[in-house]
């Protein structure tokens, strides 16, 4: 558990703003969060006055111990426990095929997918991403090696990670479909790092991911080490608009929400 006054991932403990709100969800034009993408069939307000991407199932205050991503007031940082994996973590390890009968756009099945996140990892991973019996993870940040998310195009992969409570993956490189799906759904931020951080961090370390203009930083609070993160780059106009659907609405390609 992060040592913080406010473990809930929704509220920013260091926020200068008085009222609690999903602080970390706005003001990040360069991040791949389709911020206006009301994900799946969670019926949230589609009025223009509620522009924020809202994830009621995983971002609202949760009383069970779970991934706590503390967020700073600039809403560009995550802090929480990290879970470390190696290279070539393929989609079968992220969400084994037998669970693909779960439909992500169905709210109860979405939550179930989260409970199976990374259950395909071999038994050599003695600490599991989601503890047996739990439905959510304690680890909000996943640290990986090269080619994270390789294999299938199943969108269930980033969805399962997000549904479990992860907010970001920090890895050396990504397989393209996984990266694309992460961006399109906004479930997890696929952040790139050049250093071999998966060998310098241990599962359970408290880390911070700071996303800044032109790049960012990963900080391991246990060791004090810091690494540079690559800027998200790619698909700029789409990300700025807030995802493919928001972009398409903005440019008139599709009519506004029916």
């Amino acid at each position, binding site marked *: 558990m992060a040592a913080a006054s406010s473990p809930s991932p929704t509220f920013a403990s260091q926020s200068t703003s008085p009222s609690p709100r999903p602080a970390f969800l706005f003001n990040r034009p360069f991040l791949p969060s389709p911020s206006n*993408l*009301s994900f*799946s*069939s969670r019926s949230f307000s589609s009025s223009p006055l509620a522009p924020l991407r809202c994830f009621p199932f995983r971002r609202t205050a949760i009383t069970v111990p779970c991934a706590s991503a503390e967020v700073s007031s600039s809403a560009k940082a995550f802090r929480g426990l990290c879970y470390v994996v190696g290279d*070539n973590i*393929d989609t*079968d*390890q992220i969400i*084994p*095929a*037998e669970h*693909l*009968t*779960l*439909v*992500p*756009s*169905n709210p109860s099945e979405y939550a179930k997918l989260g409970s199976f996140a990374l259950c*395909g*990892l*071999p*038994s050599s991973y003695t600490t599991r991403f989601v503890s047996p019996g739990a439905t959510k993870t304690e680890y909000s940040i996943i640290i990986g090696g*090269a*080619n994270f998310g*390789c*294999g*299938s*195009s*199943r*969108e*269930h992969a980033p969805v399962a990670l997000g549904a479990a409570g992860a907010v970001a993956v920090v890895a050396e*490189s990504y*397989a*393209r*479909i996984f990266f*694309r*799906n992460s961006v*399109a*759904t906004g479930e997890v931020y696929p952040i790139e790092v050049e250093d071999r951080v998966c060998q310098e961090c241990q599962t359970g370390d408290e880390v911070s991911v700071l996303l800044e203009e032109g790049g960012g930083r990963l900080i391991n609070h246990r060791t004090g080490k810091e690494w540079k993160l690559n800027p998200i780059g*790619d*698909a700029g106009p*789409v990300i700025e608009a807030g995802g*493919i*659907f928001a*972009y*398409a609405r903005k440019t008139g*390609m*599709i009519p506004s*929400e*029916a």
Partner: protein
Amino acid sequence: MAASTTICPSTSFIANKNELGLSGFVTSRLPCAKRFGGVKPGRKVVAVMAPPQKAERLPATTGSVKNAMTMTEKILAKASEKPKLSPGENVWVNVDVLMTHDVCGPGSFGIFKKEFGQNAKVWDREKVVVIPDHYIFTTDERANRNVDILRDFCKEQNIKYFYDITDLSDFKANPDYKGVCHIALAQEGHCRPGEVLLGTDSHTCTAGAFGQFATGIGNTDAGFVLGAGKLLLKVPPTLRFVLDGEMPNYLLAKDLILQIIGEISVAGATYKSMEFVGSTVESLNMEERMTLCNMVVEAGGKNGVVPADSTTFEYLKDKTTKPYEPLYSDGSARFLSEYRFDISKLEPLVAKPHSPDNRALARECKDVKIDRVYIGSCTGGKAEDFLAAAKVFLASGKKVKVPTFLVPATRKVWLDLYTLPVPGSGGKTCSQIFEEAGCDPPASPGCGACLGGPKDTYARMNEAKVCVSTTNRNFPGRMGHKEGQIYLASPYTAAASALTGYVTDPREFLQ
């Protein structure tokens, strides 16, 4: 667009091939680009050499150095209505065909309705192809429900191409059911040169064998395409693979792609296009080309392409009447890298557990005892794949030493097993040869156990076993059990291994 006559020069016209926008690498047989706008059988299409286009400079016919593009760049340029594209550009691409199946369809439809409205209609009811194939023959309720969800959506949207299945006890009782999506797409004429095909499955890249841009996308992207008919894509740079030399009689396309993946690794082609050219590629039939392109994603590739030629056009003759326009890399197009292989020097390969790039010579694994053999999937369950396996069983005349599972990709393949005569067998069919060899009888067509699936899936690996498989991935747990060991191999190698009970080089039987 004007139906311009495309060009089929004979070798005597090579001199100006750059002006004709033809690839400079094609050697023996130049592609004959015939336009098929509803060609009836018996009517001869005479290909003529057209004068250089003056009016509309379509990407295919511009050959000027200024606009030199690779095949993938050209296809995306045409689909995004831009005269020129360079790798790295993000463009909005018109989609010709969107495919989905039972695993990702429900999620994609859910997103479509959420974003475009409960009463929204898909952008084109004839361009969406819905193919249940993944978890079909199972009692898993959710899996069955997912096929129902497909049906409800297709009914409501009046989707033209929905290969439905309602009677799970007998696939033949379902007039529309086909089987594995990528093979069904090809067999039903949905793959055409020069087009853009997107699918909610990583092996959508298989269709690149037809000289089109084909790649896998997720549910959200698919939901978007369902409504908008287009998608934002980044133009990939192209890696060129030149495969030359006569294909030895013990090698198949699977060996070629395993060679390449082993060479460049599972991330060697990430975000890139893989273009396959050379005399060996030209000698491959369509199904072998499909195998080649199928595993492009295993190298991280965005898409794979094989230039369309007479083999392609011949295959398409009886499958589609839609006109298409093949596109080819310009002679001066820029490729990121070029790899050359002398195929005649290659040997049968396997990919050892647990990665498709864990390449090894089959003969060096001859001490690996195996528990079972699986022949199936979009990668290795086509008619050609079964014919190849049958060839090895025929040559041996013996029985298999381990359970050998046969899962034809589609209903057409299943039929072929029972009707096509195996060369050199005196008129026997594949099924007869398989029966004599002691294989399990061919199962209902579909994806089967390639990706594990629900627990009751036929041939699923429910215990830690060692399996030689003609499938495409062998990451931990791929076919079910996390400790299962999967050796990816060609149908020749799989059949040879079944006969010995060990990983076996097919030359033991084919020479």
